[in-house]
C-alpha cells in the first residue's frame, strides 16, 4: 500500500533563503541562467580540509576528500558531512577532523565530536545508508587505513560498529556505494579501492635529476581489488567479493555508482578507474556480477585508451529513459559521457554533448547531474582541481587551483557551459554534492577542497517548478528504498525524466537520497515509481512545488 505524504509548498519555506539573497554578493550571469552565491561563512560551514602534507609526498595527500548531504537526524532538512584527511603516517600528527554540520534551520552547527563521529583513518569519502533497517541513516567512511561504519543510534549520535560489522577494509579506499544488489531487502556495500601505496613504501617520483620531487603516477603502484560486502541482515556483512566476481579485477578505483543500467530491476555497478579500464558490473541476478565494460563501450576513451577516471555520475541526461554515465578525468583528457544506447551498449558522446572541450584545461573530480534550474532536464556540475602543487612539474597551462564548472542542458543532453554561474571560489576541489540545504525548492552545492576551506553555494535561481520525492519503505530493511526508480512526466510535457534513489556517487561523496525533478512551467505531473523489489505504482496529477514522502507500508 502506498501513501503519499505532501509537505508544505515551497513558498512557505522560502523566507530563510530570502535573507541570504538580500545580503549575498551575486555574480553577473547570462539572462535566465541559474546563479549561485558563496554562503559558506554565512551559513556557518567553515570547514577546512587538511591533507597534512609534510613534504614526504605521500600519495593519499592528493586525493581527499568527499562531502555527504543527508538528513542524519531525520528532522526533514539536510545536514552536511565534510570528510577531513588528517596526517600521514597515521598517528604522527593531527588526526582527521571530519565535520558534521547539523542544519538548525537558520545556520549549520558543527557537532561531529558530540555525535561520536571520530574518523581514525586518513579520511577519503563517505556514503550514507540505513544498513540496519532501523529507519535512520548510518554512515560508511572510506580511508587510507581501515574504513569505518558508524551506526546511527537514532538520537543524533553514532556508534562505530566497524569491527562487528566486518566492513573495515584495510586497503586504501576511495569511494563507496550502498545498494540492495541481491534484492534480499537490505543494503549491501561496494567499496572502490585505489592502489597499494603504503607510507612504508613511498616511491620517489618527479624530476629526480633536477631534485624536484612530486607525487607519483598511480601506475607506479599496483591497483587494488574492490570489495563487495553482502549484508547478512543482522547488522553484519560478509566479504562476498570473490563469490560475486568483483574481487578479482584490479583497478585503480576512484569513483563508483550503483544504478540499474540495463533496466532489468537489478542494480549494476560502474567504477571509474584512474588509468586502468573502467569496470561495469552487470548484476546477473544470481548473487554475482559479470564485468562487461569493454564490450559495453564504457571502459575506455573514444580512442580505446584507459583514462584517469576520478568521479562518476549516472543519470538520464538526454531524457530517453536510459541511464547514461559520466566520468571526470585529468586535464587534456576530456571528461567522458557514455550515452546508454540500450541492449547493453554505451556510445561515447563526450564531444557531441559539449562537455569535452570545456573540460580540457581542468582536472575533474566530483560530478553531479541535477536539474539546477528545474527546467525539466538535468544539468551538470564538475569540481576541478589539480593534484600537483608544484606547477614547475606540470606541463602546459595547468594551475593547481581550478574553477568549478556548471553546464546547462539545452534539452536532449546538449550541454553548454555557464561560466557566469557564480561558483566564485577557485580552489583545488575534490568532493561535490548537490541538495536543497535551505529548503527553498532548488538545489544548492557543497564542494570539499583539498587542503582548503569548503565551498557552499546557494542556488539563487531562476528556477522552474519542481517535485521532490523521499521514498520510505516499511516492507524491508532498505528503508530509504535505495535503487527505486521514479519517472516523472510533467503535465502537458512530452518527455519523462527517470531517476533512481542512490547512495553514493560523484567523487568520494553522496548527494541526498531524495529525488528532485524540475517541471519547468508545469503545475503537475504523472509519477511512476518502481520500488526496489519490483512493485510499480502510478500517481496522477501530482501538484508541483512539493516534497512528497512516498511510503510503502509493510502490508502486502
Amino acid at each position, binding site marked *: 500500500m502506498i501513501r503519499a505524504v505532501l509537505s508544505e509548498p515551497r513558498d512557505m519555506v522560502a523566507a530563510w533563503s530570502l535573507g541570504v539573497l538580500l545580503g549575498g554578493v551575486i555574480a553577473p550571469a547570462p539572462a535566465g541562467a541559474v546563479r549561485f552565491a558563496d554562503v559558506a561563512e554565512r551559513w556557518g560551514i567553515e570547514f577546512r580540509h587538511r591533507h597534512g602534507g609534510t613534504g614526504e609526498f605521500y600519495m593519499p595527500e592528493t586525493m581527499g576528500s568527499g562531502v555527504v548531504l543527508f538528513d542524519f537526524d531525520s528532522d526533514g532538512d539536510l545536514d552536511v558531512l565534510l570528510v577531513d584527511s588528517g596526517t600521514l603516517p597515521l598517528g604522527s600528527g593531527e588526526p582527521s577532523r571530519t565535520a558534521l554540520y547539523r542544519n538548525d534551520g537558520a545556520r549549520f552547527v558543527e557537532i561531529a565530536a558530540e555525535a561520536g563521529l571520530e574518523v581514525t583513518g586518513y579520511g577519503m569519502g563517505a556514503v550514507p545508508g540505513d544498513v540496519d533497517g532501523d529507519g535512520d541513516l548510518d554512515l560508511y567512511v572510506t580511508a587510507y587505513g581501515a574504513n569505518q561504519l558508524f551506526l546511527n543510534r537514532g538520537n543524533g549520535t553514532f556508534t562505530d560498529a566497524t569491527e562487528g560489522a566486518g566492513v573495515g577494509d584495510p586497503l586504501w579506499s576511495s569511494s563507496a556505494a550502498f545498494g540492495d544488489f541481491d534484492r534480499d531487502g537490505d543494503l549491501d556495500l561496494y567499496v572502490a579501492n585505489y592502489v597499494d601505496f603504503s607510507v612504508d613504501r613511498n616511491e620517489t617520483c618527479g*624530476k629526480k635529476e*633536477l631534485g624536484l620531487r612530486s607525487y607519483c603516477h598511480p601506475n607506479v603502484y599496483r591497483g587494488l581489488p574492490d570489495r563487495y560486502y553482502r549484508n547478512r541482515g543482522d547488522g553484519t556483512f560478509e566479504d562476498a567479493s570473490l563469490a560475486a566476481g568483483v574481487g*578479482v579485477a584490479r583497478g585503480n578505483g576512484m569513483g563508483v555508482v550503483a544504478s540499474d543500467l540495463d533496466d532489468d530491476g537489478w542494480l549494476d555497478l560502474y567504477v571509474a578507474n584512474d588509468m586502468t579500464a573502467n569496470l561495469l558490473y552487470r548484476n546477473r541476478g544470481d548473487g554475482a556480477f559479470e564485468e562487461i565494460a569493454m564490450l559495453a563501450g564504457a571502459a575506455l576513451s573514444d580512442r*580505446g585508451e584507459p583514462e584517469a577516471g576520478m568521479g562518476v555520475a549516472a543519470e538520464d541526461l538526454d531524457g530517453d529513459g536510459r541511464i547514461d554515465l559520466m566520468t571526470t578525468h585529468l*586535464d*587534456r583528457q576530456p571528461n567522458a559521457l557514455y550515452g546508454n544506447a540500450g541492449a547493453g551498449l554505451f*556510445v561515447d558522446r563526450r*564531444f557531441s554533448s559539449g562537455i569535452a572541450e570545456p573540460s580540457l*584545461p581542468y582536472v575533474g573530480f566530483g560530478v553531479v547531474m541535477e536539474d539546477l534550474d528545474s527546467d525539466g532536464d538535468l544539468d551538470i556540475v564538475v569540481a576541478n582541481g589539480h593534484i600537483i602543487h608544484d606547477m614547475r612539474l606540470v606541463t602546459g597551462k595547468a594551475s593547481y587551483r581550478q574553477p568549478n564548472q556548471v553546464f546547462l542542458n539545452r534539452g536532449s543532453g546538449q550541454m553548454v557551459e555557464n561560466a557566469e554561474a557564480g561558483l566564485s571560489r577557485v580552489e583545488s576541489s575534490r568532493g561535490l554534492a548537490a541538495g536543497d540545504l535551505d529548503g527553498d525548492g532548488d538545489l544548492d552545492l557543497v564542494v570539499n577542497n583539498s587542503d582548503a576551506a569548503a565551498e557552499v553555494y546557494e542556488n539563487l535561481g531562476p528556477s522552474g517548478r519542481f517535485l521532490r520525492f523521499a521514498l520510505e519503505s516499511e516492507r524491508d530493511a532498505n528503508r530509504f528504498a535505495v535503487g527505486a526508480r521514479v519517472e516523472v512526466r510533467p503535465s502537458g510535457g512530452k518527455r519523462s525524466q527517470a531517476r533512481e534513489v542512490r547512495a553514493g556517487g560523484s567523487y568520494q561523496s553522496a548527494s541526498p537520497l531524495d529525488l528532485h525533478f524540475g517541471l519547468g512551467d508545469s503545475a503537475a505531473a504523472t509519477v511512476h515509481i518502481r520500488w526496489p523489489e519490483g512493485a510499480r505504482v502510478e500517481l496522477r496529477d501530482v501538484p508541483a512545488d512539493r516534497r512528497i514522502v512516498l511510503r510503502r507500508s509493510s502490508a502486502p
Partner: protein
Amino acid sequence: MRNDRDALRDRLGRCRWRGSRACLLVALLAFPAAGRQPAAEAVAAPARPPLAELPQPALETQEDAVRGQLTELRRQLDLLIADPSTPLPRLAEAFGRLGRLYFLYDLVDLASIALENAKLLAPNDHRWPYFLAAHQTFEGQLEEAIGNLERVLELRPNDLPTLVRLGDVHSKRGGVELAREFYERALALDEDVAAAHAGLGRLDLEAGQHQRAVDRVERALELQPDADELYHTLGMAYRGLGDVERAREALRKNKHGRVTFDDPLIESLGLENASAEAHIQMASDAMRRQELAKAVPYYESYLELKPDDVVALNNLGIALLGLDRWEEGMKTLRRAVEIDPNHRGAQYSLATALADLGRYDEALEHYRRAHEIDPAEKVIHADWATLLAKVGRVDEAIAELRSLLEEDPLQDYGRLKLGSVLVEAGRLEEAAQELRQVADSGGLQRPGRGEAHYHLGVVAERRGDAAKAREHYRRAIELAPGLAEAQRSWGVIRAREGALEEAAGAFARAVELEPRNERYRFELSMALLLGEREAEARKALEEALREFPTAINLRHLLARLLASASDPAVRDGERAVELAQGVVERALTLDHAETLAMALAEIGRYDEAAAWQRRVVRQAGDEGEAGGPAHAARLERLERYERGEPARTPWRG
C-alpha cells in the same frame, strides 16, 4: 675572416655530446642556415609591427641540454630584435623557431607569444599558424585552433595535415557536419589518408551508422595496419551491429597504436628535441602501449646521450627481443649486464631471453645471478625454478618453489609455477591443489589466473574429465586471451564438439599470438578445412608455408586441398602435383601417395594416378586394411582414375 662553417665547428667542439644528433641540432639551430638568408635583407626593412613582449623563460626544470639550446636561441633572437634593420622574415623565423621549441618543451605561454609574433611578422608563412593551432589543440583552445587552421588553409588550400586536423578539432567540438566535411575534403585529395577514414568512422559510430563505421575503420586499418587503436572503434561498431564475437575479437586487438597522418611540420619537432628525458619518456610511453617498434628509436637516441644507462639498455633489449630482433636484443642485454653485473633486471631479462632461445645452461646461470642479487624477488626465484624443471631437475625445482612458498604463502606466481611443474611431473593431485588456490585467489591479474585454469584443464584432460577440462579452458581464454596454448586447447575442445567456426577462431588467435608455431597453423588450417572454408584454408596454408617452407604436414595438407577442393577457384592441380611429389619424395606414406594420385588425376594424368593408387591399394591390403571402409574408398578412387575421372576426397586428418 671566420665564416659560419668555422663558427659551427667551434660550437660542435664545445658540445658535451660530440657526434650526437642532438648536439648537431643544437649547433645548427643556433645559426641561420647558409643560403637561406631572406632576399628581403638586401632591401630596406619595412616597419616592424608592434610585437608582444616575450618574457624570459624559467628554465630551472629543464635539462642542461635543453637549457643550453633555448638560451642560445633566445640570445640570437634578442640580437635580432635589438637590431632595427633585421628584416621581418628573418625575425619571424627566429621567433617561430623559438616558439616551436617552447611548444616542444611545454613552455606554453611563451610558445603562444613567440608564435603569434612570428605570425604577425610573416603573415603569409603557413608554419606559424599551423604550430599555433597544434599548440592550441593540445591546450584545449579549440576555437582558436580552428581560426589558425583556417588561416593555413587560406595560404595552402589543399594542405592535407590541416584538413585532417580541422576534421579532428571540429569533431572534438561536437561539430559533426564540419568535421565530416574536412575529412571528406582530405579524402578527395588523397583517398588513402587513414586518419580521415578513421575520423569518419568515429563519426559514423556515434551517429549509430554501424556498418558504415565498420567499412571506414576497416579501410583505415588496411591503410595503416599498426593503428590498432582503431580496433576499439571497430569493436564498438560490431557491437552496435549485434555481432558480439567479432566485437570481442576486434577489442582484443587494440594495443593502442595510434592512427597517424603525414605531418612534416610536427614531425620535424621530434628531431629538434634535445631532452634526454623526453626521449626516455617517449620510449617508456611507447613501451607502456606495447608499441615496441616505436620505443626502439627513442631508446636508441636516449642511449646516444646516456650510453651507460642500464635501465634503458635493459628496456631496449626487451623491446628488440619482442620485435624478434634477437641478435641485437641479446647484444644489448649483454652490454647491460657487462656495465652493471649487479643489475637484477638486466640479469633477469638476459636469463629469460636465453631460456627462450633454448640455451638453458646459460639461462640458469643468469637466473641464479639475478636471484643472488635480489633473493626477495619471487618472480625471479619462481622462473629460475621453473627452468630447473624444464632441464629435468624436477625435484630441485619443486623444492625451490616450495621454499619460496614457505617464505611467502600468498605468493601466487610461485604457486602457479609450482602447479605447472607438478603437472609436467605427472603429480596431478598436488598440481590441482596448488592451481585451484591460484585460480580462486585475487592475488594474480587475470592472465595469471587464466594460466592456472589452463593447467587445471590439462590436469582434468589427463584424468579423462572432459567436462571439467572444457570449463577450465573456457575460463582460461576468458581470463588470459593472450595465452596461446589455452586458445589452442579451447580450439581443440570446440572442434571436437563440432563448433568449427569457433574452433578456427581460437586457433587463429593462437597463431596470431605465436606465429612461429607450426602446430597452431596446421590446426587452424584443419579447422578451416573441416568447416569447408576452402579459400580461407588455402590462404592460411600458404601463409603457414611461407613461415615453414619445409613442413611436410603443411605441404601435404595444401596439396590435398588444391587437388580436392570443391571450389574450382581454390583447386590448382599443377601446384598440387608439385607439392605432392615433393612430399612423396621425402616421406612415402599411403596418404601422401593417395594425395599425389589425386593431384595427378586433377590434371588429367589418369594413368599415373591409377598407377600410384594401385600401389596404395596393394600396400594397404598388405597392411591388413582389406575389407574395411577405408579400403573400399581407396578402391573406388582407383576405379575412377581408371575410368578417366578425378576423385576429390578432402583430407579429414
